[in-house]
């Protein structure tokens, strides 16, 4: 709190706010706020697998629809579904069907035997099985422009496919470079060639080697909007080479690996939370306090910062420091030794 006494302007503004607040409080006695329990909505839906199709080596496409054939929430190119697997895992898959089809969704999954197990479980789904999914979410918004360069690597073609179709439909200038390990491993290649002809360059690494950003971008006009989806090394190389506008999907923050377990004491309740080696303090705190604030989960925005009352912690964040930042822990990335006491 400031020591400075309020000046005339602050007092006037405060008076104004106070008057508005008093009016609203008085009037709220006659019309109370609505009961938000009636507005509870988890935005989840249980759909049924209508079709399973082998798309390419280790890739299947799943067509999902409502049990009763009802209309599904609309989506735009770039949208994905969060799929909640029976094992409790949550995975995100891009919608790659036709947005005009309001009665089914299509997603495609590459089987990664060494992944976290999500794709293996997805490959076990058969026609008739039920799946719980979120409403379509858009973390890769596709915007109307005159010219596009689409760059897709392997299964990264899935969000790009509806974008290519939309670009074709609106008559925009576009090109697609589609990379992958081998032709057999690349889904939708034939469909894309039929759609775009010589606008589409299928570029398997087996024949051309791993691509560099410079090769992929070539002499693209700097005003062209580049839409990119592929494995992290591809994103890095393109990001370094791109001069013009570049869009790529932001995935969830990287998982914590090889951390040291520690404890967080929540001072306001006295509860002690165990932070595991492979999770962030934020994840552990949210189990106990689901309404704690956070946002970027990558240590830069500072929304999850909590004042530290005791214990030692390391600052692995790069959130810009304001008052008191040095005594606060950015719990989405910072770790501690032993036990740290937080004012929450």
């Amino acid at each position, binding site marked *: *709190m*400031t*020591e*400075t006494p*309020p*000046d005339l*302007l*602050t007092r*006037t*503004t*405060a008076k*104004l*706010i106070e*008057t*508005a*607040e008093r*009016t*609203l*409080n008085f009037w*709220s006695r006659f019309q109370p*706020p*609505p009961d*938000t329990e009636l*507005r*509870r*909505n*988890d*935005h*989840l839906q249980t759909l049924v697998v209508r079709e399973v199709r082998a798309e390419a080596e280790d890739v299947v496409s799943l067509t999902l629809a409502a049990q009763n054939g009802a209309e599904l929430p*609309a989506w*735009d*190119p770039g949208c994905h579904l969060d799929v909640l697997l029976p094992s409790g895992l949550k995975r995100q898959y891009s919608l790659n069907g036709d947005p005009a089809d309001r009665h089914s969704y299509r997603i495609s999954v590459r089987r990664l035997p060494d992944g976290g197990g999500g794709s293996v479980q997805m490959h076990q789904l058969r026609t008739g099985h039920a799946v719980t999914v979120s*409403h379509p979410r*858009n*973390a890769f*918004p*596709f*915007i*109307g422009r*005159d010219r596009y360069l689409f760059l897709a690597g392997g299964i990264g073609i899935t969000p790009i496919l509806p974008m290519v179709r*939309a670009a074709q439909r*609106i*008559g925009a200038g576009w090109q697609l470079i589609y990379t992958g390990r081998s032709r057999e491993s690349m889904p939708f290649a034939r469909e894309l060639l039929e759609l775009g002809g010589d606008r589409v360059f299928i570029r398997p690494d087996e024949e051309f080697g791993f691509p560099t950003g410079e090769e992929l971008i070539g002499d693209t006009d700097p005003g062209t*909007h580049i839409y990119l989806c592929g494995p992290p090394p591809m994103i890095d190389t393109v*990001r370094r080479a791109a001069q*013009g*506008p*570049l*869009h790529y999907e932001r995935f969830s923050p990287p998982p914590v690996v090889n951390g040291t377990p520690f404890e967080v004491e929540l001072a306001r309740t006295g509860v002690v939370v165990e932070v595991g080696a492979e999770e962030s303090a934020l994840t552990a705190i949210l189990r106990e306090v689901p*309404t*704690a*604030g956070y*946002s*970027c989960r990558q240590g*830069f*925005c500072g*929304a999850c910062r909590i004042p530290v009352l005791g214990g030692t912690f390391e600052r692995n964040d790069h*959130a*810009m420091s*304001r008052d008191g930042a040095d005594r606060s822990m950015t719990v989405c990335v910072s770790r501690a030794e032993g036990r740290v006491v937080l004012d929450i």
Partner: protein
Amino acid sequence: MTAIEPTSVALHARDVQFDWSKTPVHWVPDEPELAHFYNVMHLLLPELELWFVQVFTDALPYITDAKVREDVLGFIGQENMHANAHQGALDLLAANGIDPEPYTSQVHHLLQGWIDRTRKMKPKRRKQSLLNQIAVIAAGEHFTAVLGDFALNSPAFDEVGTDPVMSDLLRWHGAEEVEHRSVAFDLFRHLDGRYPMQVVSMLAVIPALWMLWHRGARMLLEADPTLTPKQRKLTLRKFRRWHRRGLLPNAKIYLPQLTHYLKGDYHPSHYGSTTQAIAYLATSPAAKAGQQ
């Protein structure tokens, strides 16, 4: 251009890096007073934004809709980044002998005092007080979206040779305001939505913002040691010139927006362009530097 506009965007904070080493305090050539009129942002907005963040974080336990909740979390991160970024520009003022503290401490006192009072209240009053603040923020966010839209559509800034880092700050901030323009209003509608709340809060926001902004501008003009007495005055003639040159949005932009907000069927998504905002964010030098 074409009719593709994303209907909703999963909001996320973007890391940004601004390099202020080459930016002058008077970053609009030949218009030091206008630069200061805009410099008020660096004083006022971080205080407002950190207040938004506290109110919205305190509102989290009341939210029962997963989508509203997700939007609010994205909003909190973006507003925090805005506050941080303006803080950098504020240091630029301090380095040029302008002490913003007398003003910022007043604004801090006002807003922090409000949320601190709320936090001490009993549950029922506390909720009503939070709803009051959310209604006021929703009304305020309508104006930040209008200003953001102006920043994205103001070629005049480039034509007069405005400092590129400052233009980028204005437009990056403006673009994210346009991108998240529905969040505060959606939260208001989810938790509250009572029409009189909408009207009274807007009627309070307009004079409050106007007073705070002009007070900030006068304070900066007084504190800048390099200005002449004539330059320290904000005259109507200067405002007319800035409006004419397209460097400041005028009443023709504000007033219709006010009546829009007071309509019963108002929704922020009807105004401004998400496409334009995302197109700018894909090119913003600060946003690109933040991704490295």
